[in-house]
């Protein structure tokens, strides 16, 4: 599981790659926390184009990101979400809380 980053002004794009499951979720969460504290973006985009699999552990990662951004009055959006992950988000109703494309 890898994380890539691109920041342009107040917008940060985080690129996730590989499987997001219980095994990988904690390190992703900690990495995301670290970058959000260090970079203080107003807008966070999570690019999931290279995510090969996601279970409900990914929901916890995204919810953590949502909480962190809400704390600073910022926004979060998910993009290039694979169909399998979209289905997990829909099952949890998260597609009604966050922009998912």
């Amino acid at each position, binding site marked *: 599981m890898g994380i890539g980053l691109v920041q342009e002004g107040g917008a940060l794009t985080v690129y996730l790659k590989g499987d997001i499951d219980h095994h990988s979720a*904690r390190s992703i969460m900690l990495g995301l926390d670290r970058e959000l504290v260090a970079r203080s973006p107003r807008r966070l985009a999570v690019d999931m184009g290279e995510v090969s699999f996601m*279970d*409900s552990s990914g929901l916890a990662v995204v919810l953590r990101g949502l909480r962190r951004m809400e704390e600073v009055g910022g926004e979060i959006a998910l993009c290039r979400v694979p*169909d399998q992950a979209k*289905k*997990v988000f829909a099952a949890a109703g998260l597609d009604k809380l966050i922009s998912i494309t």
Partner: protein
Amino acid sequence: MIPILNQATLLFPSKSSNEAFARTTAACFAAQLDPTLDEIGDIKTAVSEAVTNVIVHAYPTDLGVVTLRLRILEGRLFEVMVRDKGVGIADVHRAREPLYTTGDDSRSGMGFTIMESFMDYLRVRSAPGKGTTVTMRKRIAPRPGAGK
């Protein structure tokens, strides 16, 4: 009792590094029914949830054994059973409620909800101190033009 056409059983320790192994193995076994990518995704997701529950909740302090039993039943039914001999669930009905979790904030509490959504059948049997058995089934649709 639905006739069993094929079966495989796997035992492995409750290490998180085995989550991918379990879901991939289940998908490989289901491949003999020629599932679609969506059906494979559903099976992998449900198995991942069930195995993760064992790792996180059944054996919270030490490693234990996870039993993964895979079956092909008559009528294009894929069945997966995940069993542990861990702490057990005191209130199964409550555990199956969306967002309920006894885990920390790395857990969403959506595991059983996702298993129910992605599979056609889910049964959970558990008691404190007696482990847990989760059984799920999914009917794999025949492909157009396929024989059976």
